[in-house]
């Protein structure tokens, strides 16, 4: 590693002040599972200063508020898995957290770090996108809230400006308990990046799909939605065949690449299979009343 300065931020304001002071010369450090690899092995010059936010209380923890479920950016994947609130109102996010790296990495790696690294295969992205999540960003000019979809710009690129900090993620109240499924397919069961991952959410009241959301990872420069598949499902009776067809449509919306891990064709096939499995998992989580109407 090349030398860099280090400051432990006391709170969000302190972190933002440091980020504003150093501009492009500053890097935020949360769990370090991505940043440490960068600091050790990147050919680029090191940051002037690393701003450690891993002890900023305001950015830690999971809480139900009037607005919905708020998850602080430095909440670890391990804490998400353990959270009884997440298990209850958003189990698909715990599913995703449970397949990120291995247990030791999950105890360090944070939700905010996962979103901010912004690789297309990030496992937290699809579920949160399928639940219309929003993110709070703090900067020198104050705070702003944007839809998560507007955070993702390209591989390893977000819309955050130098001097800005991701504070928390909010899933709006109306989407808590929305039936949702998450699926990941990697080359091994443990410790493998997703060849494809996906999430789907939908209400299934009266035996009909409503407000369906389908999100796909690792098949485009950023995590994307599949609007045609969503439009196909909206208002349609819940059936296995409709779920399979939504998967086939989503596969046409994916823009995967061929690399050493898998071919584009294989990834496309995976999209069809995983989207269907996500919808089946979502149905499994629908309330008994919803399920009865669907059968």
């Amino acid at each position, binding site marked *: 590693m090349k*030398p860099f300065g280090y400051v432990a931020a006391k709170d969000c304001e302190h972190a933002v002040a440091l980020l504003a002071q150093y501009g492009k010369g500053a890097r935020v450090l949360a769990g*370090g599972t991505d940043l440490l*690899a960068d600091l050790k092995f990147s050919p680029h010059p090191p940051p002037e200063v*690393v701003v450690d936010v891993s002890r900023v209380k305001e950015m830690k923890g999971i809480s139900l508020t009037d607005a919905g479920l708020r998850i602080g950016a430095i909440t670890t994947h391990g804490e998400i898995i353990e959270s009884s609130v997440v298990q209850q109102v958003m189990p698909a996010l715990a*599913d995703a957290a449970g397949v990120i790296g291995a*247990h030791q990495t999950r105890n*360090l790696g944070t939700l905010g770090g996962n979103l901010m690294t912004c690789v297309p295969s990030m496992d937290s992205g699809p579920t949160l996108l399928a639940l219309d999540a929003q993110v709070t960003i703090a900067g020198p000019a104050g705070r702003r809230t944007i839809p998560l979809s507007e955070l993702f710009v390209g591989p390893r690129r977000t819309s955050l400006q130098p001097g800005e900090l991701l504070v928390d993620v909010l899933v709006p109240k109306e989407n808590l308990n929305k039936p949702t499924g998450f699926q990941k397919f990697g080359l091994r*069961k*443990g410790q493998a990046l997703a060849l494809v991952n996906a999430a789907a959410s939908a209400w299934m009241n009266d035996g009909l799909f409503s407000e369906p959301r389908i999100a796909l990872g690792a098949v485009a420069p950023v995590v994307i939605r599949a609007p045609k598949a969503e439009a196909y499902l909206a208002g349609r009776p819940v059936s296995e065949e409709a779920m399979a067809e939504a998967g086939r449509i989503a596969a046409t919306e994916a823009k995967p690449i061929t690399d050493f891990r898998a071919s584009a064709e294989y990834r496309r096939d995976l999209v069809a299979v995983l989207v269907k499995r996500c919808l089946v998992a979502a149905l499994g989580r629908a309330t008994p009343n919803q399920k009865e109407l669907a059968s």
Partner: protein
Amino acid sequence: MMKLSFEVNGTPCDLAEIDTRTTLLDALREHLRLTGTKKGCDHGQCGACTVLVNGTRINSCLSLAVQHHGDRITTIEGLGTPGALHPMQAAFVRHDGYQCGYCTPGQICSAVAVLAEIEAGVPSHVTADLGAAPPLTNLEIRERMSGNICRCGAYSNIVDAMAEVAGVKA
């Protein structure tokens, strides 16, 4: 350079001047001469560097030492000594849970944490019933130990050692 104070294996440690670049792993090995914790990949992928921080297992190669001011660190040296082995260390010896031994300190730290996590009711993604205490099945052990790679392939003996300490048949 920075000052760092933390507790390692029950002993308060003050490092008057530590380079901010030092990982927790390098601080333990090179500054405190606790060479039980091993460096395998230095990337977070092998688990050889697993230590417990405030009781939680992490990859010490992925964390800067200066992030651990005030923390309580436990390494393999803190679990037991050659004369007074930790039950997990003794079970690894009995079951031949290693060959070359390079991954072993990380395996044992992880194994101790796994049993504590199970006892605390922490689910994993292979746990079927999230409401009940996770059962310590072969599948649960293998999933929970998936961050500890053993190049010699001692996996089945490691599972046996853990099952013995937990008092179950895996």
